[in-house]
């Protein structure tokens, strides 16, 4: 076993190593304030050589304006020297040879050698720390200034939801001090009626760390409550730890009042509209009842007139006088047209009320067309001929009664609006996809600028003057076609004639009733 050799650092040599290699300045000062010893780092730090410093007053290392004060403090120190660690928060400055002043921390130690009091100063250059602190402070000042001058009220909470910060805008709005609002103090400014709801919403959001947006009335510095919208977002550290909320309040008072006014206005308008609508509905119902009643009641006198007319004809006393016959015929035509008009009124009313339904049946379209031609025979003028052509299967499934109305209307119009000695062509084609029907005349035509109104209620073209009609027929035709899911088109030229083309979809055999 060998006794461990003392390390070099324990001896004089060791001290030398420490003294020479330390990265702090180490200076030994005597009672008179003169530098006895300085380590090499002092040279590096202050720019003086050790030789230059030795024997010089320590104040050489201190800014000129502090030297006098320092020498007094130094003298006091030597009266009752004590050790002092570094960083007691004192702001100390040192001076380099080139006059540059820099912040330092100084630790002091003391000892006596040969009855002389000596002080050892350990000086650390803290320029970088000070610089870093300043940057931080500037940064915080910048942030605070931004928050305080923001045109919204900003607040921050801790992770428990207690408010820890309000910006100047909030404080100015409420007229309160920061301390007043901290924690849950802010709730004192919330309108009592809004408070329970606000607190509940806030706590619910907090529980789940969710964003929230709450509207409530906040008391202003003048005691008036203003509507604000308070929006909060959860904040997290980069590690994902919830740190609380950051939020802001917007004054939405004027906006809200405007909105309330608008809503009020809308409510009133809607109410008025409802009233108008219900009156309109009532009027419609009344109209329907009237149309139905009138047409029913008018049918009785028409029945009498028509049957009496027939009886007059039967008794034949007029046979000797052609003029009587002509007038009897006029009476008959007039009664029939009143009857037709009544029917149209009633049909249209029922269409408008949505009471008309599709009634499909299977029938022979050719036979049907001959019936139509037979029905309108009496209307034909001198020399008018109706030609019928067809192609494809004669058997169709369609709403027979509605198609009868449509075809009778189209063909009688063709007769009515065509001069004597003109031909009227009827055609139908039944193919797999659809049944198309066509009625063509060589009559007066429809003026081009009026063609768009063709299916409008009560529309009559300007060139129909002197030809009787209600302007309801084509409206009903169009609606019937629509009901039958078909289409109707026409081409027309004034003075040359009109061609109506209809296209009806095929219905399958399951969806109709046999007659």
């Amino acid at each position, binding site marked *: 076993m060998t006794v461990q050799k003392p390390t070099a650092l324990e001896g004089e040599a060791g001290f030398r190593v420490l003294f020479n290699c330390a990265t702090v300045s180490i200076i030994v000062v005597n009672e008179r304030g003169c530098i006895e010893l300085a380590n090499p780092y002092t040279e590096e730090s202050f720019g003086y050589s050790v030789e230059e410093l030795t024997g010089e007053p320590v104040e050489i290392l201190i800014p000129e304006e502090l030297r006098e004060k320092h020498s007094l403090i130094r003298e006091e120190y030597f009266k009752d020297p004590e050790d002092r660690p570094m960083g007691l928060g004192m702001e100390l400055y040192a001076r380099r040879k080139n006059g540059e002043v820099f912040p330092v921390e100084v630790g002091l130690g003391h000892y006596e050698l040969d009855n002389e009091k000596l002080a050892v100063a350990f000086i650390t250059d803290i320029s970088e720390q000070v610089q870093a602190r300043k940057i931080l402070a500037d940064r915080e000042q910048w942030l605070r200034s931004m928050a305080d001058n923001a045109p919204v009220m900003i607040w921050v909470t801790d992770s428990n939801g207690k408010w820890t910060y309000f910006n100047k805008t909030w404080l100015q709005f409420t007229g309160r001090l920061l301390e007043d609002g901290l924690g849950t103090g802010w709730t004192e400014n919330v309108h009592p009626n809004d408070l329970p709801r606000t607190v509940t919403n806030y706590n619910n959001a907090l529980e789940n760390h969710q964003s929230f947006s709450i509207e409530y009335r906040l008391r202003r510095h003048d005691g008036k409550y203003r509507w604000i919208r308070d929006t909060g977002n959860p904040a997290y550290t980069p590690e994902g730890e919830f740190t609380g909320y950051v939020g802001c309040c917007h004054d939405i008072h004027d906006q809200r009042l405007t909105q309330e006014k608008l809503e009020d206005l809308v409510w009133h308008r809607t109410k008025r509209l409802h009233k108008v609508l219900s009156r309109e509905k009532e009027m419609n119902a009344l109209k329907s009842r009237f149309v139905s009643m009138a047409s*029913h009641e008018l*049918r009785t006198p028409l*029945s*009498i007139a028509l*049957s009496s007319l*027939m*009886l007059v004809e039967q008794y034949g006393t007029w046979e000797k006088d052609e003029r009587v016959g002509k007038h009897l015929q006029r009476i008959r035509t007039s009664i029939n047209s009143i009857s037709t008009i009544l029917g149209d009124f009633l049909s249209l009313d029922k269409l408008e009320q949505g009471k008309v339904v599709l009634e499909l049946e299977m029938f022979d379209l050719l036979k049907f067309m001959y019936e139509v031609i037979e029905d309108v025979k009496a209307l034909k003028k001198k020399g008018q001929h109706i030609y019928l052509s067809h192609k494809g299967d004669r058997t169709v499934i369609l709403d027979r009664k509605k198609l009868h109305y449509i075809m009778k209307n189209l063909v009688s119009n063709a007769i009515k609006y065509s001069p004597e000695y003109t031909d009227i062509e009827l055609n139908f084609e039944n193919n797999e996809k659809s049944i198309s029907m066509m009625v063509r005349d060589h009559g007066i035509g429809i003026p081009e600028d009026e063609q768009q109104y063709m299916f409008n209620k009560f529309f009559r073209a300007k060139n129909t003057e002197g030809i009787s009609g209600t302007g309801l027929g084509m409206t009903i035709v169009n609606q019937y076609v629509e009901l039958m899911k078909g289409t109707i088109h026409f081409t027309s030229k004034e003075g040359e004639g009109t061609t109506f083309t209809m296209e009806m979809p095929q219905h399958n055999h399951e969806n109709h009733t046999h007659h």
Partner: protein
Amino acid sequence: MKTILIIEDNYDIRDNTAEILELADYEIMVAEDGVQGLYKIKERRPDLVLCDILMPKMNGFEVLRQLKNNPSTVDIPFIYVAASVEKDEVLMAMDMGADGYIGKPFEVEDLIEKVREKMALLNRE
């Protein structure tokens, strides 16, 4: 000669219809409402009934119902002659067993044609 009963509350229509059918060689009985109509049928069975729908005391539907419920009258041909243009009413009339429907105002030819048609069916039986 075949007999026709006309049940119709309007005097003019009743009278005109009777006159028209008399000219067509039918014997006519008349009644001015449903109750009277049923009474007349009980008194003397007609070969055919022409009946209005909307009438005082008893409407046409009820007249038909009672005729159809009585074995001795169930097979009398029954034709409605009515101003009613309501589709539903017509359908209802046909469903109840009416043999025909003539809307007012009717063309005389239509009336006579329909009556003759029903009478011809009677002759065949």
